[in-house]
């Protein structure tokens, strides 16, 4: 780590405005860090020349006093966001030569505000995974290691490259997407902050679709403030996404340091799962204590349908995925294999182009949507989803401002350790995060401590719809109390 890569996004922003260094120097420092960190496999595409061009433009605008809110700040972008003229693959073989001629709305917003693209970040194929092991480009290696061991650990997923790159100081911030926990769980595993905004807060236009009623883009940062700064630029209405809300975007950074006195924090009893690790439970209690010390009130609440969220998710998400991924047919873009006829061409192309986990989810989704099973599975799951959302609505209506839970049931595990024999073992990682997507709510994961082996653990705060502001205020309280956690560089 050099002086320039040690800065948070907010510190780098302020230093650029004070002309302590140039955007080009900042970009170069990060490009050098990326080159040194190839063992992490966090980036699937480095765009050094493009980064330097963008940094030079940023320096011009800084010199002329025309700096945007993110002017000159070097970011990594999850490879699920389409970037004009720059290969975008969703880390799938079926798209590994795809170069879009358009820019996702979220990334366009970032460039509008002056940010610099360092490269595209690794993720689970089509964002389907909780460990970044399903990527066509191979797994990401976490910058974290257990104390005294060199076992390679997962960074979490699906936004594993984003979390690893931010934790390893390869970029000042990154984008991710979260369908069932894909921002919050890797943020927790890597000891950084990650936020999934309210459904509709950020445009989904130009993001490779997984499950359209659940997908949402969000920021990663090494501080709560950094995430607040990024979200302000990423969020906002978009005529190209009919599900994107036309609501004004607050200056989220103002929420940092705001008083949380009198805030009512719900502690859902159903999240205290049987067999929960003692250190997760004590971390949770410590988090509640920190909020109380800052003047908030904690109240036990009940979200009775919690245990049904994960099974309902594993109907809704694969169903939507099987429909969304029908577009990969070897005709308009992507991989194509020859076949005896057009149907065989589709079948051969999709069998070769999709990885195992993606094929599995397409099969499940196709089955639950097929004639005779639609009502028993898909319709039932959508009704259960209504009940899951109602649980949250009832709590918020009773005056709860936010809900505190652990982010994940454990710290990071080793590459190859989970899900080989039983895919459901991997799915259980999302047990605390998936409810939030099912209900369309905002959730933030804030690093809160280390486990006995020295690995980071996170706490999740869940907010009312479009009340990310309260999450930033509460998150900043936890961050202040818990401190920061950084991996010891070994790469």
């Amino acid at each position, binding site marked *: 780590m050099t002086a320039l890569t040690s800065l948070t996004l907010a510190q780098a922003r302020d230093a650029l405005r004070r002309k302590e260094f140039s955007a080009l120097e900042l970009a170069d420092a990060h490009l050098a860090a990326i080159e040194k960190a190839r063992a992490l496999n966090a980036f699937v595409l480095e765009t050094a020349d493009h980064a330097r061009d963008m940094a030079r433009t940023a320096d011009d605008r800084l010199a002329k006093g025309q700096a945007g809110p993110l002017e000159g700040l070097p970011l990594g972008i999850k490879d699920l966001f389409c970037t004009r003229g720059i290969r975008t693959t969703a880390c799938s073989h079926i798209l590994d030569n*795809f*170069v*879009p*001629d358009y820019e996702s709305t979220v990334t366009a917003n970032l460039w509008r505000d002056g940010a610099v693209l360092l490269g595209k970040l690794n993720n689970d194929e089509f964002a389907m995974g909780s460990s970044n092991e399903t990527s066509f480009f191979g797994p990401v290696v976490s910058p974290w290691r257990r104390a005294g061991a060199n076992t390679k650990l997962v960074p979490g997923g699906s936004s594993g490259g984003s979390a690893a790159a931010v934790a390893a100081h390869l970029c000042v911030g990154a984008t991710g997407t979260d369908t069932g926990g894909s921002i919050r769980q890797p943020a927790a595993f890597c000891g950084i902050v990650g936020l999934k905004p*309210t*459904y*509709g807060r950020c445009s989904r236009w130009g993001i490779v679709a997984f499950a359209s*009623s*659940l997908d949402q883009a969000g920021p990663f940062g090494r501080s709560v403030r950094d995430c607040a700064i990024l979200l302000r630029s990423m969020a906002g209405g978009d*005529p190209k996404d*009919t*599900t994107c*809300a*036309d609501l004004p975007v607050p200056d989220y950074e103002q929420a940092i340091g705001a008083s949380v006195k009198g805030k009512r924090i719900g502690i859902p009893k159903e999240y205290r799962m049987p067999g929960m690790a003692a250190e997760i439970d004590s971390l949770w209690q410590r988090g509640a204590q920190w909020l109380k010390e800052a003047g908030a009130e904690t109240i036990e609440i009940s979200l009775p349908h919690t245990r*049904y969220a994960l*099974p*309902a998710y594993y*109907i809704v998400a694969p169903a939507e995925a*099987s429909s969304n991924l*029908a577009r990969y*047919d*070897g*005709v*308009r*873009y*992507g*991989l*194509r294999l020859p076949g005896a*006829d*057009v149907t*065989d*061409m589709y*079948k051969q192309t*999709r*069998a070769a182009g*999709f990885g195992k986990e993606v*094929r599995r989810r*397409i*099969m*499940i989704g*196709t*089955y639950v949507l*097929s004639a005779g099973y639609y009502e*028993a*599975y898909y*319709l*039932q*799951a*959508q*009704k259960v*989803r*209504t*009940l899951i*959302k109602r649980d949250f609505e009832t709590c918020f209506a009773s005056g709860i401002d936010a809900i505190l839970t652990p982010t994940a049931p454990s710290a990071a595990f080793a590459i190859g350790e989970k899900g080989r024999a039983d*895919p*459901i073992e991997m799915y259980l990682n999302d047990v605390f995060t998936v409810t939030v997507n*099912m*209900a*369309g709510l905002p959730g933030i994961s804030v690093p809160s401590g280390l486990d006995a082996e020295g690995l980071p653990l996170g706490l999740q705060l869940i907010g009312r*719809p479009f009340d990310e502001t309260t999450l930033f205020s509460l998150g900043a309280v936890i961050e202040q109390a818990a401190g920061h956690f950084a991996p010891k560089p070994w790469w």
Partner: protein
Amino acid sequence: MSVDAETVRRVAHLARVAVAEDEIEHLRGELNAMLAFVEQLAEVDVKNVEPMTSVTPMAMKKRVDIVDDGGIGDYIVKNAPATEDHFFLVPKVVE
């Protein structure tokens, strides 16, 4: 509910994914494990519960019905594996 080998073949065909005969048994096991996992949803009382259609209450946005884009044929076929002029090429469909 559990699926048999024939159902696996049918679902794979519907999903347009080629599956080799020696993969069927494994896929059958995976599908059944997933179905067993989601089985618990059947116990939830959903009487008079509407299925969710939109996670946030919102009015569908509409736009004026005008052509506001176009002339981008080159872009549209640029990533296609096989094209001729501005057409996508596929294996012969009609004899």
